[in-house]
């Protein structure tokens, strides 16, 4: 299972999707959705599983900031079939702070068990701050001119 494409569904322009090459960095704002499309092969009985995606920081473990999941229905197949599915993750800046270098991964779950996990794609998401923020606001000097 691999992450194939990333798209941004901007909150400001409903109905539009921005496509990005996987190697590029995606800039998102609060309310935007990141669509992760994964490709995988399946063989087995018909099943309903969950496709799960997360944005966060890969350290010793993956520190998830925002995530989402979506049900996918797999048909019965005795031979390997290639499929692709997507999951949309909403950017919520109360959970993921403005900054760069966020990583992503996806997995397919059956109940609470992980069935297959994608490799982590590093440094692909930058979260932009939409609200004005001030830091160390101070009167530094005052003098007669």
């Amino acid at each position, binding site marked *: 299972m691999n992450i194939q494409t990333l798209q941004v569904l901007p909150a400001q322009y409903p109905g539009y999707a921005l496509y990005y090459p996987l190697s590029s960095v995606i800039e998102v704002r609060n309310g935007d959705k990141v669509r992760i499309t994964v490709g995988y092969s399946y063989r087995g009985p018909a099943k309903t599983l969950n496709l799960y995606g997360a944005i966060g920081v890969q350290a010793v473990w993956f520190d998830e900031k925002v995530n989402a999941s979506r049900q996918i229905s797999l048909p019965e197949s005795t031979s390997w079939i290639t499929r692709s599915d997507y999951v949309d993750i909403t950017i919520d800046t109360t959970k993921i702070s403005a900054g760069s270098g966020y990583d992503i991964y996806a997995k397919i779950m059956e109940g609470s068990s992980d069935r297959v996990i994608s490799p982590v794609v590093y440094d692909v998401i930058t979260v932009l701050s*939409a609200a004005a923020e001030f830091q160390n606001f*101070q009167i530094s000097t*005052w003098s007669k001119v």
Partner: protein
Amino acid sequence: MLQVISLGSPQVVELASGDTLRVVIAFGYRGPAQRLTLYAAIGNLGFFGFDEIISVQSPLDLPASLESFTACNESIDIPITGAIAPGMGYDLMSKISEYQSQTEVRVADVINIVGAPSPWSGITSVMVMAMMMAMMGQFMPMGQD
């Protein structure tokens, strides 16, 4: 938020009517490009807040800085007028009007206003003295015939 403060005595500036005080404000900004209002005032910090005597404001154009904080240094000039009486220990206040709660800062006892006292204050003192003497004259006999 970590604030670094100076433990030394703040610089006191002596001003007279007709002078101009230049106030420099330093801060970090993160957010979209926008025009806000930089505001500064001289007055007295009291129990009920900051009692402004002279205030000024000017447009402040902030750059787009969506990912990280950008250091900003802005200045604003306050012309000293006859509206402020000679005296010591006036206070200084500055803020961005649209983000008052995030930005309002004050520096106490840093402005002295020098200059001749108002002629009205002298006249008032003379009048008070004259009234007191007149009252005393009514109760105290000035001489025996």
